[in-house]
C-alpha cells in the first residue's frame, strides 16, 4: 500500500469518525459551515458563505452515485441553508427520493426534509404519495409514525382520498402513538376539507374513550375545530366531556401528564375551550358544567404559570356559557388578582379577562380603574394595545372623548400600518357612534386623517363632508354656519403643516370650495390661492386636482353671483391652462365646465350654483317635459318621431327576422349572435320609465356634484343654445340608448356624496338629529381639545387635593351618576388618601395624576398581596428545581461536566454560540 493511499484512507477514516461519532453527530464540513457562518461579521458575509455552500451542494448533489449517507448529510445541509432563508429548491427532488429509502434513518430524514421544504400544494408531493401509502401499511410502527407526520403536513384536499382509508384503519392500531397520530392526521384533513371526514364523527367519538390519554387529547383538538363549525351534533357530548374534565381535575390521569404538579393542564385547557363552545347560550348544558368549573377554580393554584393559564381559560369559559352569578363572582376575583399582579403577563391576561367580563357585568370595570390606567400608561406596547382594546369595548357616550383622545395619541406614535388601520377605524367607529358634538367629530376626524391618512377608507371622508354640509340637521342655521366657518378655520390652520395625506386634502378642498368665503372673513383670492397651493404640494394627484378645480369653480361662481369680478391669480391661471390639455378626461371636462360657467350671466350662475346647496334634494323632471318644445321643433323640421324601447325592439326583431329570411341558408348560424345583445334588454324594458328616469337621476347627480346644478334652474339653460353639453345629454337620454352615458365619471367623481346623501338622507338626518339632540348647540360649546387637558388637571386636583373643579367636569359628573361614587371608595386598590376627597370620576381622567398614585398608595395596603406574590415566586422556583432535578436523574450526564465538555469542544472547533459567555441554556433559569 502506497503512502498516498494510506493518507487517503486516513482522511476517510477521520471523516467517517466525524460523520458518525462527532460530538454533535454531524460531519466536519457541516461544522465548518456553521462555524464560518457564526463568525461572519456582517449579513453580507454570511450571505456569501451560504451562497458558496449552495453552489457546492448543487454540484455535489448531482454527482452520480452519491453514497446514501452522504446524501442525507447534503440534505440536512440544504435544510439548514433553507432555514437561513435561501432557496434550496434544486435539492427537493433528492429529499423526495430519500423518502423511498428502506433504511428508516434515511427515510425519516427524507420525510423531515420534505415536510420542511414543501408546502402542501407543491408539485413534487404526488411523488411521495405512493411511498406514504406503502409506509402507512408498514409493520414497523416507527415507519408508520414518520409517514403520518408527513401526512399532516403534505396531504392536500386532492390527495386526501388516496390515504384516507389507511389512516382510518390506523385508528385501531395497537400502538397508542400511531392511533394518536392518525387522529391528528384526520383532524388536519378536517381543517383542509371538512366534507372528507364528516362521516368519521362516530369514530372520533369512539377514540375519545381511548384508554390512552394522549389519544383522547388528540381527539379533543379535532373536536374543538368541529364544534367551532357546528355545535349541534356534539351537544350530547357535554356530559362525557365534563366527566373527563372531572377526572383530569381530580388527578386521575396518569402521573406522567402532570405538569408542574398540575394534573394534565393542557387537557384541561382544551376541554374548557370545548365546553365554552358547547355551553354558549345553552342553559341546560351550562348547568352541567357549573360543578366542575367551580371545582377547577377552587383547586387550581394561582402561583404557577400553568395554574393561571387554567384559571384564565376558566374565566373565558364562564363568560361565554350561560351565566352563573356565583361563579362569575369568582371569575371577577381571579381577574382582579391578575390585574393586581406585578407580572406583566398576568396583567395582560387580566385586561383580556376584564374585557370579557364587562360584556356580562359592565359595572365590574369600575373596580379596576387604577389598574387599567396603570396598564394604559405602561411602557410595554403590548399591554398598552390590549388596554386600548379594553377601552374600546367599554366606550360609552360619557367617556368617548377621553378614550378617543388616547387612541389618537397612540396611533400617532406607532408605525405599524396594520394596527394603525385597525385602531383608526375603531376611532372612527366610536366617534361616529358616540360623538358628543359635530365640532368634536370634525376635529377628531381631522386628526385621524392627518395621522392615518390614506389608510382611512374614502367613505369616511364622504361622511365627514356630508356632516359639515348638513350641519346639525335642524333649523338652527346660525349654529351650522358657525360650524362651517370653524371648519374652514381649522382647515386653513392644518394646511400650514407639510405632508398632508391626499384624502384630507380632498376634504379640505371641498370644504374650502363650499364654505371658504361663506362667512365673508376670507377673500376669494385668498381661498383660491390656498387651493392652488394644495395642488402644488401634490402635482401628480388627479383626483385631488378634480376636487380643487370644482372648488375653484364654485368660488368663482359664488363671487360672480354676488356681483363681484374675480381676478384669477397667476398660479391659478397657469394651473387651469395646464388642465385644458390634461390626460385625464375627467379633469378636462371639469375645466371646460368651469370655463362655461364663468361665461354665463349672473342670474344663471346663481341658479346653477347656489350657495350652500350641496345637500339640497334635486328634483328630477322625470318626463323631461322641458324638452317638449325642442322635440316639437325637431319634429316640425322633419325628424323621425321617437319610438319607445318596446316598439323599437319589436322592429329590430322583425328586421332580423327579415334579414334572416333573406339570408336563407345561413339563417340558423346567424340567428344566435344577433339575438344575444337584445337578451338583457327585456328586464330593463319592463321598467322603461323608471329605468330611464333613474338614469336621468344618475346623470343629474353627476352634475349636481360637479357643479351643483339644480334641475329647476336647468330647464331654461338647456333650452338655450349655450350649454351645449347639457342639452346633448338630455337629447341623448330621450332618443339614444342608455349605454354610453359617461359612467366612468362616477367613480372618479370627487364629490359624489350627494348620492349618498340622497340614499341615506333620512337615516343620516335622524342620526344627526339624535346626535345633536343630546348635545347643546355649539355656540355654548368651548374648544374640546384644549379643554380636556385643563379639565383633567382640575379633576386630578379635585382627586388628590381639595379643590373641586366640579363646574367644568362634565363627563366626570356623568360617570359619578352612574354609580361610581358609591363603589369607588369600597374598591380595594384605591388609596386611602383620596377617600375623603370627592369620589373619583371618569376613570381615564385620572391619568394625569398617575405618577402620584404610587406615592400616595401605601405599600402596606397591598402587603398581603405582595407577600403572596413573593411566596409564589419562591415556590415556583423550587418547583422548577424539583422538576429539573427529577429530569437530571434521567438525563445523560451530570450537568456541569457535560457543559464543560461541550464548552471545551466548542472552543476547539472555534464556534462561539451567539450567547457568548454562557452556553448553558438552562443555567440562569434553573440555577
Amino acid at each position, binding site marked *: 500500500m502506497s503512502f498516498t493511499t494510506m493518507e487517503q484512507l486516513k482522511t476517510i477514516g477521520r471523516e467517517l469518525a466525524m460523520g458518525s*461519532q462527532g460530538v454533535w453527530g454531524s460531519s466536519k464540513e457541516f*461544522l465548518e459551515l456553521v462555524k464560518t457562518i457564526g463568525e461572519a461579521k456582517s449579513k453580507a458575509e454570511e450571505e456569501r458563505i451560504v451562497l458558496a455552500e449552495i453552489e457546492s451542494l448543487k454540484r455535489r448533489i448531482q454527482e452520480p452515485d452519491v453514497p446514501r449517507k452522504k446524501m442525507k448529510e447534503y440534505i440536512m445541509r440544504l435544510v439548514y441553508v433553507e432555514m437561513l432563508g435561501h432557496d434550496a429548491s434544486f435539492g427537493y427532488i433528492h429529499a423526495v427520493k430519500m423518502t423511498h429509502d428502506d433504511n428508516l*434513518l434515511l427515510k425519516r430524514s427524507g420525510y423531515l426534509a420534505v415536510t420542511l421544504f414543501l408546502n402542501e400544494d407543491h408539485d413534487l408531493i404526488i411523488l411521495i404519495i405512493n411511498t406514504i401509502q406503502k409506509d402507512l401499511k408498514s409493520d414497523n410502527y416507527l415507519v408508520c409514525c414518520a409517514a403520518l407526520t408527513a401526512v399532516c403536513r403534505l396531504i392536500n384536499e386532492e390527495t386526501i382520498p388516496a390515504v384516507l382509508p389507511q389512516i382510518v384503519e390506523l385508528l385501531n392500531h395497537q400502538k397508542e402513538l400511531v392511533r394518536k397520530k392518525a387522529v391528528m392526521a384526520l383532524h388536519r384533513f378536517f381543517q383542509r376539507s371538512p366534507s372528507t371526514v364528516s362521516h368519521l364523527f362516530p369514530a372520533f367519538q369512539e377514540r375519545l374513550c381511548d384508554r390512552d390519554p394522549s389519544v383522547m387529547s388528540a381527539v379533543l383538538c379535532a373536536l374543538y375545530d368541529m364544534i367551532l363549525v357546528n355545535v349541534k351534533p356534539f351537544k350530547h357530548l357535554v356530559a362525557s366531556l365534563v366527566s373527563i374534565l372531572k377526572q383530569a381535575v381530580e388527578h386521575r390521569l396518569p402521573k406522567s401528564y402532570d405538569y408542574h404538579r398540575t394534573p394534565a393542564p393542557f387537557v384541561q385547557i382544551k376541554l374548557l375551550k370545548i365546553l365554552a363552545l358547547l355551553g354558549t347560550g345553552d342553559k341546560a348544558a351550562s348547568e352541567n358544567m357549573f360543578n366542575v368549573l367551580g371545582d377547577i377554580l377552587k383547586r387550581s393554584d394561582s402561583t404557577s404559570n400553568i395554574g393561571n393559564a387554567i384559571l*384564565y381559560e376558566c374565566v373565558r369559559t364562564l363568560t361565554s356559557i350561560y351565566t352563573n352569578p356565583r361563579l362569575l363572582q369568582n371569575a371577577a376575583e381571579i381577574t382582579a388578582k391578575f390585574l393586581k399582579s406585578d407580572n406583566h*403577563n398576568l396583567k395582560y391576561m387580566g385586561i383580556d379577562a376584564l374585557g370579557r367580563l364587562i360584556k356580562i357585568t359592565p359595572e365590574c370595570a369600575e373596580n379596576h380603574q387604577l389598574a387599567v390606567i396603570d396598564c394604559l400608561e405602561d411602557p410595554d406596547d403590548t399591554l398598552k394595545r390590549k388596554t386600548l382594546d379594553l377601552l374600546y369595548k367599554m366606550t360609552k357616550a360619557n367617556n368617548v372623548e377621553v378614550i378617543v383622545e388616547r387612541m389618537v395619541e397612540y396611533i400617532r406614535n406607532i408605525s405599524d400600518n396594520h*394596527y394603525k388601520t385597525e385602531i383608526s377605524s375603531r376611532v372612527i367607529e366610536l366617534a361616529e357612534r358616540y360623538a358628543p358634538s359635530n365640532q368634536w367629530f370634525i376635529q377628531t376626524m381631522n386628526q385621524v386623517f392627518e395621522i392615518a391618512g390614506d389608510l382611512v377608507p374614502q367613505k369616511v371622508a364622504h361622511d365627514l363632508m356630508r356632516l359639515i354640509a348638513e350641519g346639525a340637521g335642524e333649523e338652527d342655521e346660525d349654529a351650522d354656519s358657525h360650524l362651517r366657518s370653524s371648519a374652514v378655520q381649522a382647515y386653513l390652520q392644518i394646511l400650514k403643516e407639510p405632508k398632508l395625506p391626499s384624502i384630507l386634502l380632498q376634504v379640505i378642498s371641498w370644504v374650502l370650495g363650499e364654505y371658504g368665503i361663506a362667512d365673508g372673513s376670507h377673500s376669494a383670492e385668498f381661498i383660491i390661492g390656498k387651493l392652488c397651493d394644495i395642488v402644488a404640494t401634490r402635482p401628480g394627484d388627479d383626483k385631488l386636482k378634480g376636487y380643487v378645480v370644482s372648488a375653484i369653480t364654485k368660488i368663482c361662481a359664488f363671487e360672480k353671483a354676488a356681483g363681484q369680478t374675480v381676478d384669477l391669480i397667476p398660479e391659478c391661471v397657469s394651473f387651469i391652462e395646464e388642465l385644458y390639455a390634461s390626460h385625464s378626461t375627467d379633469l378636462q371636462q371639469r375645466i371646460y365646465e368651469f370655463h362655461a360657467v364663468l361665461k354665463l350671466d349672473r342670474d344663471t350662475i346663481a341658479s346653477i350654483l347656489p350657495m350652500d346647496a350641496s345637500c339640497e334634494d334635486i328634483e328630477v323632471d322625470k318626463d323631461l317635459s322641458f324638452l317638449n318644445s325642442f322635440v316639437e321643433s325637431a319634429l316640425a323640421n322633419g325628424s323621425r318621431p321617437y319610438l319607445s324601447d318596446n316598439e323599437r325592439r319589436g322592429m329590430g326583431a322583425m328586421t332580423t327576422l327579415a334579414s334572416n329570411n333573406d339570408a336563407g341558408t345561413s339563417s340558423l348560424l346567424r340567428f344566435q349572435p344577433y339575438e344575444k345583445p337584445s337578451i338583457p334588454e327585456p328586464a330593463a324594458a319592463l321598467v322603461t320609465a323608471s329605468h330611464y328616469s333613474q338614469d336621468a337621476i344618475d346623470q343629474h347627480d353627476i352634475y349636481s356634484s360637479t357643479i351643483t346644478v339644480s334641475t329647476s334652474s336647468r330647464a331654461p339653460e338647456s333650452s338655450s343654445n349655450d350649454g351645449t353639453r347639457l342639452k346633448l345629454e338630455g337629447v341623448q337620454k330621450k332618443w339614444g340608448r342608455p349605454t354610453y352615458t359617461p359612467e366612468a365619471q362616477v367613480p372618479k367623481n370627487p364629490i359624489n356624496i350627494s348620492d349618498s346623501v340622497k340614499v341615506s338622507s333620512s337615516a343620516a338626518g335622524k342620526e344627526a338629529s339624535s346626535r345633536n339632540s343630546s348635545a347643546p348647540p355649539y355656540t355654548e360649546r368651548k374648544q374640546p381639545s384644549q379643554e380636556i387637558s385643563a379639565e383633567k388637571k382640575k379633576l386630578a386636583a379635585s382627586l388628590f387635593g381639595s379643590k373641586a373643579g366640579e363646574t367644568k367636569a362634565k363627563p366626570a359628573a356623568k360617570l359619578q351618576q352612574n354609580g361610581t361614587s358609591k363603589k369607588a371608595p369600597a374598591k380595594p386598590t384605591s388609596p386611602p388618601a383620596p377617600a375623603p376627597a370627592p369620589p373619583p370620576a371618569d376613570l381615564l381622567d385620572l391619568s394625569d395624576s398617575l405618577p402620584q398614585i404610587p406615592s400616595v398608595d401605601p405599600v402596606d395596603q397591598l402587603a398581603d398581596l405582595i407577600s403572596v406574590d413573593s411566596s409564589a415566586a419562591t415556590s415556583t422556583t423550587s418547583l422548577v428545581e424539583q422538576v*429539573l432535578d427529577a429530569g437530571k436523574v434521567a438525563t445523560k450526564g451530570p450537568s456541569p461536566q457535560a457543559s464543560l465538555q461541550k464548552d471545551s469542544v466548542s472552543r476547539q472547533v472555534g464556534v462561539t454560540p451567539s*450567547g457568548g459567555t454562557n452556553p448553558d*441554556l438552562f443555567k440562569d433559569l434553573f440555577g
Partner: protein
Amino acid sequence: MIRFVLLISRQGKVRLTKWYSPYTQKERLKAIRELSALILPRGPKLCNFVEWKGLKVVYKRYASLYFCICVDSEDNELDGLEVIHHYVQVLDRYFGNVCELDLIFNFHKAYFILDEILIAGELQESSKKSVSRVISAQDTLVENAKEQASSLSNMIAQATK
C-alpha cells in the same frame, strides 16, 4: 392553532423554524425579520406576548435563545408559554443540559422532537415521558446504523496504523 415555531438567537440568527400554515419563502423571511425587530429589543420585565398582524406571538427567552410561537388571536397565551417550556424541558431531558450549540448542530434532532410534541399546529403530547420514549425508540434505530459506521471506521483506522 400554532402557526409557526421560531427559534432565534439574541443576534437575530435563526436556529430553527417550523411552519404549520403555508407561508412562502418570502413571507417567511419577512415574518422572521419583523418578529426579530419586534421581540429582540423587548425588555425582560415586559410581557411575553406581542401582537403581530392580527395574530399573537408568544415568546420566551432561554439564555441567548428566543423561543417564539405564533398563535391565533383567540388562543390562550399562558398555555402557549407553557408549550414552549414543555418543549424546552423535553430538549433538556434529551440533550442533558441543552445549550444553543446542541440545537445548532443537532437541529434535525430538535426537529424530530418538535414533531413529537407539536403536529399540525396542535400540541399532540403533553407527557414528557411518552415523548422521550418515542425519541429514544427512534434513536436506537439510529444508534444501530451508527455502530455499523463506526465499526467500519475502526477497521480503516486499524488498517492504517
